[in-house]
């Protein structure tokens, strides 16, 4: 796997797995408008994943479905944040706020990627993720500054999810150990193809901090979690997520749908 394929797969898998989790909410949202919104956001993310997987497939010779359905858990490159269980609406909105704010900054920067296809994908995604981040921010405000119960639940969700965001800024998966170069000197960064995830921390955290402040929520104390999804070391729930997602396709290998 080339460094570019590895990078694109990371972004694709983030979107794919986040979409898979959001899809669960359709028919389970707190109100009908939110069923529509969560489906809409999930669809956008699925669209991003498909575009990126197709781009990966151009060089690996695999289809988007082969990449989505026939890779094993250790080959998925998404951050653990997006695979975690989320049957609580406060958790779902916390996750969406963090993830889509990060995606929005990322795709904003990638619009000037030297890779024309990636820049085009980013140009579409930046508009979508602006809406996703805004939608999540509005819910975080309502829940944080709503009732005592919603404030308590929102703060608890934040405490649980906040540490998992660190992996979004981790650039060590872009190391090229053979060449002994630091991540920010990796060829992908030097030639302007990719964006160094570490550079996204400052703008993302500033935006998140502003939302939390307005929502009367406290920024959680730093806490370290073991989050190595970029290296294919996922949490145990990932196996179940993939079993469900992949089983039908794998039961009829080679068939078209």
């Amino acid at each position: 796997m080339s460094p570019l394929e590895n990078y694109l797969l990371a972004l694709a898998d983030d979107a794919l797995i986040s979409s898979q989790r959001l899809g669960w909410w359709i028919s389970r949202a707190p109100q009908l408008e939110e069923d529509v919104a969560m489906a809409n956001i999930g669809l956008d993310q699925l669209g991003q994943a498909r575009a990126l997987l197709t781009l990966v497939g151009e060089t690996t010779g695999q289809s988007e479905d082969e990449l989505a359905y026939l890779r094993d858990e250790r080959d998925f490159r998404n951050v653990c944040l997006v695979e975690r269980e989320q049957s609580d609406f406060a958790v779902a909105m916390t996750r969406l706020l963090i993830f889509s704010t990060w995606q929005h900054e990322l795709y904003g920067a990638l619009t000037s990627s030297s890779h024309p296809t990636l820049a085009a994908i980013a140009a579409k995604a930046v508009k979508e993720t602006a809406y996703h981040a805004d939608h999540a921010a509005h819910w975080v405000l309502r829940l944080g500054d709503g009732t005592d119960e919603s404030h308590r639940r929102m703060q608890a969700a934040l405490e649980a999810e906040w540490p998992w965001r660190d992996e979004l800024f981790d650039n060590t998966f872009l190391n090229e150990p053979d060449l002994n170069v630091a991540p920010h000197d990796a060829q992908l960064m030097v030639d302007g193809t990719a964006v160094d995830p570490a550079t996204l921390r400052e703008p993302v955290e500033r935006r998140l901090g502003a939302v939390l402040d307005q929502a009367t929520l406290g920024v959680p104390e730093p806490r370290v979690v073991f989050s190595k999804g970029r290296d294919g070391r996922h949490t145990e729930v990932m196996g179940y997520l993939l079993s469900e997602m992949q089983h039908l396709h794998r039961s009829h290998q080679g068939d078209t749908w």
Partner: protein
Amino acid sequence: MREFVTSAVTVVTVYGNDFTTPEQQAAPDSAAPRPADDEPASFRALLEADDRVEPRDEMPEAYRKTLIRQIAQHAHSEIIGMQPEGNWISRAPSLRRKAILMAKVQDEAGHGLYLYAAAETLGVDRADLLDQLHSGRQKYSSIFNYPTLTWADVGAIGWLVDGAAIVNQVPLCRCSYGPYARAMVRVCKEESFHQRQGFEILHTLSHGSDAQKAMAQDAVNRYWWPSLMMFGPPDDDSPNSAQSMAWGIKRFSNDDLRQRFIDMTVPQAEALGLTLPDDAIAWNEERGHYDFTPVDFTELFEVIRGNGPCNEQRLSHRVRAHEEGAWVREAAAAYADKQAARKQTESVA
């Protein structure tokens, strides 16, 4: 669940079609206003001119109540209908199919929204209608009490169930009540896309591997009769139809719509290379229609009584989502109140 259903006095609307179980017909709602007692002349004039009745127009109380019940039950059917197909979103066999299915189920939520909004023009609110769904006082289409056991069921629902819904609903685009008619124009456009995607799923399966073809045939076998039941009992056993037709809510009889659906579907089944589970289906030159075996409604009435495969599951899923979301809706309301108060303070200052 069962007791709610057997004690219900309201007729059952199936996706824009009214009918009842036999015991419900024997026990009419004596409290309901009788037709025609209070029919304003302006209302009759609108109907006779085939104009639309709008929310500001005078209308008989029974007309208003019939519409509320029918539109609400149609809306409920859309949102309960999200479940059987939503059941396959996480497992869709390709990313393309997953995207189409997510968009489809999202459309159903959207249809629910337009229809609740149409009902609200008649002086009720969505929260009350949802309460009536959750407590079993209002119904949804019985077709959604069947399970989706395989991926092919998603295709069969699109092709047969949405196909039957379209046949029922296209005439509703000309229904006498303006807001309902306009909502249906939009709903029908999207439903026809849904039906095509269902057909396409089955076409791919029926031209695929032996296992895929068997999966498609099995789904059609299971969904065929319930789809025909969606049109309601034969006209002779459908006492509500006549009044609805006189009011311009219903334009064609149950039997006419069922025949139209069968005539449309038989050639499509041939194109799919799938058989319909009725050996009596044959073109009748004299009638200009396909003949078919009369539908046995015993099963439908059992499902309406609450004894279908998924009645309890569908309603409890819906109630659970509503209850688990209560704190979220309360928070949104509290936040909106705080914002309004802040604005007021600002404007006073």
